[in-house]
């Protein structure tokens, strides 16, 4: 009996937004008479946090406190059209639409404030705490609340904005595959440390070290949620999950969570993350969606680490103990490859 340590690497890039574009998102922003802003969308929050990120993007763009902004989604009577929450397009497409809607609303906010302060709107700035002031003269200021009230009741002006973001549709060439698939890529590189029990084929992931390049972490905690949870799902895909254990044979398909295997809380793996930020020119504040790509490098990195540990090629997912054990048997025993990068 022996437990073998293995180390494996993989790196990936991930296309952000619907392939080939042609997927618009719209956003509407408007102010209440007391200077609170509503962002109205048709995005879906599946847990990835578009309500929260959208709120931050709107607040930053408007220049108002985040607690004065609320995102309302998704009601087809009030929210304008959006393609949906998939293809890592939520932050990128909807984020851009929100920025545009908030930019328009901000321009009106500053116009309204300019009228009250009797200055030119281009001389005004926001402090992010609910005030609008003359650049270089913070004492000449008016609150966002007073501005909104004046706009509504004195000036007869809306503080509202419309935003749409549409990446133009790319065609595909039938003979060469020429296309403009997407406009930006997120990146990841990952090192997995694991052990393999050469008597049972059982694989235990010990550590994940990762570097994820996300353009900009618009909310670092939400990014971490995705990266930690996504890497967990990557481990799950690599070692556990299948709806058809004997694929392409359809028998023995699981119908409950006892038979559809996923790692439990006792299988949690310490995950050490570095976040890199190279802002994408067309992304909101440069941020690329981290939610989909985070699982992808884990699958090959685990397979590569299993090979490193015992010399078994695991080219078919999931890497069950049975597949590892069969590989060890076929090789006449474990064949440790030695620690890479040492």
């Amino acid at each position, binding site marked *: 009996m022996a*437990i073998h340590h293995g180390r494996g690497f993989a790196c990936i890039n991930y296309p952000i937004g619907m392939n080939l574009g042609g997927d618009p998102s719209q956003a509407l922003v408007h102010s209440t008479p007391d200077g609170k802003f509503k962002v109205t969308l048709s995005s879906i929050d599946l847990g990835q946090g578009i309500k929260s990120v959208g709120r931050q993007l709107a607040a930053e763009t408007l220049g108002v406190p985040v607690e004065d902004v609320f995102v309302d989604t998704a009601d087809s009577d009030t929210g304008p059209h959006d393609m949906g929450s998939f293809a890592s397009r939520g932050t990128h497409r909807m984020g851009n639409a929100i920025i545009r809607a908030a930019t328009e609303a901000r321009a009106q906010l500053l116009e309204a404030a300019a009228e009250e302060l009797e200055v030119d709107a281009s001389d005004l700035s926001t402090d992010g705490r609910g005030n609008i002031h003359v650049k270089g003269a913070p004492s000449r200021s008016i609150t966002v609340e007073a501005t909104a009230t004046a706009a509504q009741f004195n000036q007869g002006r809306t503080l509202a904005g419309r935003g749409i973001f549409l990446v133009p549709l790319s065609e595909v060439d039938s003979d060469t595959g020429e296309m403009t698939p997407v406009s930006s890529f997120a990146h990841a590189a990952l090192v997995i440390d694991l052990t393999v029990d050469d008597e*049972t084929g059982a694989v235990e992931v010990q550590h994940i070290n990762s570097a994820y390049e996300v353009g900009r972490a618009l909310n670092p905690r939400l990014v971490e949620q995705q990266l930690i949870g996504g890497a967990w799902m990557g481990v799950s895909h690599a070692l556990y999950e299948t709806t058809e254990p004997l694929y392409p044979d359809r028998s023995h398909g699981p119908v409950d969570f*006892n*038979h559809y295997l996923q790692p439990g809380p*006792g299988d949690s793996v310490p995950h050490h993350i570095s976040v890199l930020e190279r802002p994408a020119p067309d992304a909101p504040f440069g941020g690329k969606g981290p939610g989909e790509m985070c699982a992808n490098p884990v699958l090959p990195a685990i397979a590569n680490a299993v090979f490193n540990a015992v010399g078994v090629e695991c080219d078919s997912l999931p890497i*069950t*103990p*049975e597949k590892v054990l069969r590989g060890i048997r076929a090789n006449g025993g474990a064949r440790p490859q030695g620690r890479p990068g040492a």
Partner: protein
Amino acid sequence: MLEVQTYPTIGEAAGAMDDQARFLGGGTLIMNRVNYGDPRFNRIVRTTDASLAEIRVEGERLEVGAGVTMAAILASRDLDFLAPAARAVGGPAIRNMASVGGNLMAPHPYGDLAVALLALDAVVRMASGEELGLEDFLARRNGVVRSLLVRRPRGDEFRFRKVSRVKPKGVSVMSMAAHLTRSAGRLSGVRVAYGAMASTPVRVRAVESALEGVSLDHAGIAAALSAATEGLDPPDDPIASGWYRREVAPVHLRRLLLGEDAR
């Protein structure tokens, strides 16, 4: 439509059973089927008989009511030897519901506690008062169980191990229990049982006889390991294939017998 019948005593409940009825214990097996509209039954029979939840000392034996839950076993000092098996069943919520009686009825790959009870030569006391060996009961699995009768093993004679891919709660790749009784320093009258290696928990007689009269070390158990799956045709399921179960059974049997670290 479904009908629920509740009786004050286990005897009356047993009398109400037929092939269109299911006896509801902790609910973990039957309510699942109810929720999925299982057309094979249209009646649920249950009892409020408090004696089913009792754990009593009866001479040399402990009587464990069929309604005693896994959580109640874990809370009982008298049944501490069953704690590893009881803890192997489900998560905390399931253990608050799942009962001893239900575990005997649980289909593959469930029934980890029954594996332990089988190795401990437990006796099933039916609602009628009739007693029969657990092995005989598992072969037929009919009737309503009142309680289990089990003797406390001595010292470190009893071993239980569950092999699962998900931690800390997961379904069995296999579970194994061994009652390693000794005579003059050598194993004698050993009982070994497996779960998830057949359609029900089973005793492994080939292993038991190979352990007769040997010492509990690598050399002594070699023959037993060779016979680890003799007479068994382990099932395929989404957790593992029969091939895999057969291949790793000797490894886990050795780890169980010699007390090696679990993986």
